[in-house]
């Protein structure tokens, strides 16, 4: 009798704990935690990705980052400077009120002015004047022709005027103001633990396939994989490269992969006559060799991109030839990744007057990009072989980026750095302008140009492309500009990462180039 009772109790306990999560619920293991539930607080991939479930944009992007209608049903260019957007009718906010042009106008007032924002959306909202024609028609005007207007709008999540008026970031975090139009309603945010959302039954588009979704930030890669294997989560993003080979053999797990719109590259100090982290072999001061194009070419040739891709990235990357992978808008079809050529590199170094090489310290972040430290270490080996005695220093990402952009004296501090760049416009002007455009705060060019490369001809081409509304023409100009920058070795591209998501068998997630993890892209098989 007693035994029977005990067995029964045991069975209940087992059933309670082992019962699989219902198909209606989905748990997602995130690689990094969003810093707020305020869609305008911090322009950061984890925030933008997560909040896209609650809020929506006028213009959305498909998985390959092509523009598609979102809250705006359609748009047309009236003349070069004025765009007219037709808003979707019948869209309701989660609190039941109707979505109108007023909400968009409110959003564009709020987005650039959120207090204490670490990186704001001002770059996407500035220079645009909004004019309401009627409740569902809006005109955007810019001072000059601006072909990227729709791209800019695809970055800004629209919030409700009714709940957003006077709301602070904390009000979004608590859920009070977190009212959107998206397929999911915000339920709760517990920093360091989880974010919960529930299905929006009144969604205007395809209704979500899941009743409830829970996002759990699991920062450590192996822990994320372990959580997936144990069934604690159904989907994980950013599967560590080291585990991909093994997970492929795992029958309970499926992987989805897609090329990122990110490029991992090296930026070189090209503005100082003497650069702080390059010395002669005997430790004496020398002139900055990186200003010599032959040295830059030699460094590019010394990098064995295939080895980085196959050994460090374990096959989940593509060797890079330019700023964006081949399928994106405005890339050059002519450029191929620079081939590994050790002899050629040594010869170029000798020609440039460094037959014995020099000493260099390479800097990079530890833990910002997939395998960043390992890439730096591998490239240091390759440079050392070519005669450039390279030591490395990796820093916590926050420290690294602030010193790399503005160290002592407000200038970029390092000589040679590994960085990554994700073109948030999904086309090459989004990389050219900040990375190799002449550093100029007023014009907004070269905002991430940590090498301070400057070429007036290139600047002119970027400006021209930005004023060309015709897509075909603009793509041609951009491709030419890319060729100039790469020929000059303004940056040394290394590779384009391939992003990997892991799901339990029976689920499938559509990989996105912008690295966003969208439950809307999850289908049951």
């Amino acid at each position, binding site marked *: 009798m007693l035994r029977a009772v005990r067995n029964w109790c045991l069975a209940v306990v087992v059933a309670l704990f082992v019962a699989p999560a219902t198909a209606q619920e989905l748990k997602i293991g995130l690689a990094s935690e969003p810093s707020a539930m305020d869609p305008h607080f911090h322009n950061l991939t984890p925030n933008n990705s997560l909040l896209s479930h609650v809020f929506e944009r006028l213009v959305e992007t498909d998985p390959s980052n092509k523009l598609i209608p979102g809250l705006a049903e359609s748009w047309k260019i009236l003349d070069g400077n004025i765009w007219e957007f037709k808003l979707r009718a019948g869209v309701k906010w989660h609190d039941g009120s109707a979505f109108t042009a007023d909400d968009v106008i409110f959003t564009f007032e709020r987005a650039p002015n959120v207090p204490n924002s670490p990186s704001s959306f001002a770059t996407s909202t500035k220079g645009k004047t909004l004019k309401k024609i009627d409740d569902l028609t809006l005109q955007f005007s810019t001072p000059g022709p601006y072909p990227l207007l729709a791209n800019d709008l695809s970055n800004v999540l629209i919030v409700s005027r009714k709940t957003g008026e006077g709301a602070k970031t904390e009000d979004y975090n608590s859920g009070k103001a977190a009212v959107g139009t998206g397929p999911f309603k915000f339920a709760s945010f517990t920093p360091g633990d989880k974010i919960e959302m529930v299905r929006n039954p009144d969604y205007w588009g395809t209704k979500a396939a899941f009743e409830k979704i829970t996002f759990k930030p699991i920062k450590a890669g*192996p822990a994320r994989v372990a959580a997936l294997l144990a069934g604690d989560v159904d989907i994980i993003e950013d599967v560590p490269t080291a*585990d991909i080979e*093994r997970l492929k053999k795992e029958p309970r797990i499926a992987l989805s992969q897609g090329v990122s719109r990110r490029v991992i590259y090296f930026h070189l100090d090209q503005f100082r006559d003497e650069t702080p982290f390059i010395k002669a072999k005997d430790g004496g001061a020398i002139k900055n060799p990186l200003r010599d194009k032959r040295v830059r070419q030699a460094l590019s040739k010394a990098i064995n991109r295939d*080895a980085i891709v196959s*050994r460090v990235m374990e096959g989940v990357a593509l060797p890079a030839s330019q700023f964006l992978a081949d399928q994106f808008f405005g890339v050059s079809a002519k450029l191929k990744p620079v081939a590994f050529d050790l002899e050629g590199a040594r010869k170029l170094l000798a020609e440039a007057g460094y037959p014995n090489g020099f000493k260099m310290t390479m800097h990079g972040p530890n833990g910002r990009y997939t395998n960043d430290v*390992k890439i730096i270490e591998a490239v*240091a080996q390759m440079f050392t*072989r070519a005669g450039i005695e390279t030591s*490395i220093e990796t820093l916590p990402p926050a420290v690294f980026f602030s010193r790399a952009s503005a160290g002592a004296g407000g200038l970029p501090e390092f000589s040679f750095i590994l960085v990554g760049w994700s073109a948030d416009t999904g086309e090459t002007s989004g990389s050219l302008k900040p990375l190799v455009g002449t550093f100029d705060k007023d014009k907004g060019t070269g905002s991430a140009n940590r090498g301070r490369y400057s070429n007036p001809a290139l600047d002119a081409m970027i400006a021209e492309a930005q004023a060309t509304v015709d897509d075909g023409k603009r793509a041609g100009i951009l491709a030419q500009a890319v060729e100039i920058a790469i020929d000059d070795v303004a940056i040394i591209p290394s590779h384009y990462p391939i992003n990997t998501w892991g799901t339990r068998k029976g689920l499938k997630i559509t990989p996105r180039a912008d690295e966003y993890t969208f439950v809307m892209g999850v289908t049951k098989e």
Partner: protein
Amino acid sequence: MSIAETPATVETPNKPKPAVESPLRRFAAEFLESRVAAGALLMLGLIISLAALAPWITPQNPYDLAQVDVLDSRLPPGTKSSSGAYTHWLGTDGAGRDLVSAMIYGLRISLLVGAASGLIAMVIGTVVGMTAAYAGGRTETLIMRVVDLQLSFPAILLALMLIAVLGKGIDKIIIALVTVQWAYYARTVRGTALVEARKEYVEAARCLGLSSARILFKHIGPNCMAPLIVVATVQTAHAIALEATLSFLGVGLPQTEPSLGLLISNGFEYMLSHKYWISFFPGLVLLITIVIINLVGDQLRDVLNPRLKK
């Protein structure tokens, strides 16, 4: 005459004293009574000489980037390198370093850090502890409260904070470990010195009018040595483990010059993909090193503690 004299003159200074054993010899005999301790001591000698001779016995210099090739990364034990120059008996790590070489070099760093920080902490702790015991009164209270405060901090947390402030490098790790450990020595020495200070020989020395410093360092000091040596062995093992922990957390040493902890950390992410060797072997070496130092320390305690004498 001269022939007869010579042996006599030679014999006098060298006269063996069979009845009275030298204390050192007695100590050695007692120490080696335990087979385990003798074995541990032998192993310790072996490990130290391996570490000291690293540049001459390792097939590769794992810190010379020109000798390490990323194309050879993560090779399983027993594989030949792509250039054919080496056979990696225990495999390679994620950057292509030969694990045998990297472990011996890593051991070198671990032992250096352990010994250096142990020694410096011992000197500082001894001086502070004896000063406290001898001075008494307010000075003693002040010093001992500082020691208590120090001991109440978790060692790893304090070391992490120090490294964050000081930056990377072997010297900084040693500074951090000394800061974490001196208090243990200070407390031990003060306790022993308090007991010693009440003994007759110290009173005798005082009556002779010897200076405080002389009494402290010439008379009390040597008599505090026994417990100090025991604490030193335990703390050295602790220092090695702590250095490994710091390196594992990625705050200790440069990535291109891994110690054992960093090697374990490098291999950690490959554990799930069955590339066990990158973490396993350095972990094993670290374990063995710490265990044998502790074994030697245990036996030292047994021999040096009069209460445990048979």
